[in-house]
């Protein structure tokens, strides 16, 4: 999240062949993170295969409506962020700031809805200790929620950066955008695994 190289950072060329958005370190983080989630996905499928009835039965207690809204929330915020990054690339910091503020506002609804979803479930006794399905559900969506919260902090830094810098560091904006898109992608898989799979 350093901004030292801001003024010397090259702008993306017109033809994007071979251009890497963001910084290499962020890609290292994203690939590592995807690896961690991939291990969780595979482990979930293996244990689901061993107890399909238990998993299918427990799945009925989830709230698919909130899941759908959360999917739309992340997709919309990712779209705003993509537009904002494009605006920043074109040097239009004011538009980029507005679009990133929209990304933040929409994205911040995700943790709120997660609480609306979790609290009644926990109150009804569907805690992580109930069975393996709920353990996986809380651990994986909880791990994802940590990523969403970290993403909101990063977007906060991006907003501050856009406000204070006349010419924004594109590499920094791109790195944050790539991270947020990864959070979005992971949710799509989680949503399919927990809410849709029969």
């Amino acid at each position, binding site marked *: *999240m*350093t901004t*030292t190289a801001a003024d010397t950072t090259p702008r993306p060329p017109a033809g994007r062949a071979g251009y890497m958005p963001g*910084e*290499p*370190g*962020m890609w*290292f*983080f994203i690939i*590592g*993170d995807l690896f*961690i989630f991939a*291990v*969780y996905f595979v*482990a979930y499928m293996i*244990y689901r295969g061993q107890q399909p009835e238990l998993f299918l039965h427990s799945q009925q207690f989830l709230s698919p409506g909130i899941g759908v809204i959360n999917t739309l929330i992340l997709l919309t915020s990712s779209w705003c962020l993509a537009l904002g990054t494009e605006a920043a690339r074109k040097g239009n910091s004011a538009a980029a700031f507005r679009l990133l503020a929209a990304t933040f506002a929409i994205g911040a609804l995700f943790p709120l809805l997660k609480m609306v979803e979790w609290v009644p479930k926990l109150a009804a006794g569907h*805690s*992580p*200790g109930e069975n*393996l399905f709920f*353990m996986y559900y809380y*651990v994986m969506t*909880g*791990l994802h929620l*940590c990523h969403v919260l970290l993403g909101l902090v990063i977007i906060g830094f991006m907003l501050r950066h856009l406000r204070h810098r006349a010419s924004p560091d594109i590499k920094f904006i791109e790195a944050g955008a790539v991270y947020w898109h990864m959070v979005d992608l992971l949710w799509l898989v989680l949503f399919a695994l927990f809410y849709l799979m029969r």
Partner: protein
Amino acid sequence: MNIATAALAGTLADSGRPWYKSPKLDQYICFWSVPVFYNLFGLVFVPLSWMMPPRSPTNSIDGVVAFMQSPNLLLATTILILCVALSAVGNAVYMSQMRRMAVSPVLRYAFVVGAITGAIVGCLFPMFCFGLGAFREGYDPEVLQLLYDFGYMSFIGCLGCFFLNWSCLGLSILLDEKQTLPRWLGYYTIWQSVTEIFAMTLWVSDSGPFAWDGVMTFWFNMLLYVPWQFIVYFCIYRAIRQQPESELDNAPYVGGAARA
């Protein structure tokens, strides 16, 4: 081991001076204490006492009693209680490199406090629990089971301290404009530390993949932690080698000693 031998040769050949005259000798001594510590750690945990890999939380009471009263376990805990102090020396070398970073000192203080709490709760507490079983004959089997649970829970379940400790290191690396350690290592450290929190599931799960001996809690964390520990260790070694001698805290003293 080849890499370690090459690294040791590098230490000795530093700037063409005999190794004992290197002004970074203090850091190198701390650095080389780390493999000594981890080798002792491994020997004591695995072949001597079979404390690790962790035994099952659903172990039968007879199995628990036989394990807790084993004389090897008492010997293993005694060795560990002695050598856990080496972790302080190992952390000192991390701290001396973090001191070079252009970041808030709060991060390195929190790093050290996290390491201290982690060592007490995550290493000394379990050693006291496991050592007590063989200390006196005739403990009630239920008391031994309590100590067994307490030992494993505190050893594997106190990862909050290490989460804080490594997160502070990761953040320092990322925020450091001097790039004392590579930025990718900062990201690697952050995701490594975040996944540590998820071993907390052992508090609600006594069997299956999320128990203290489970695939997701113990083995997956080991898969992430072990390579990371090696990598961070070699990056620290490179940072010590690259550190300019004028930047050393003890530069005036070792300079004086060399002249004398």
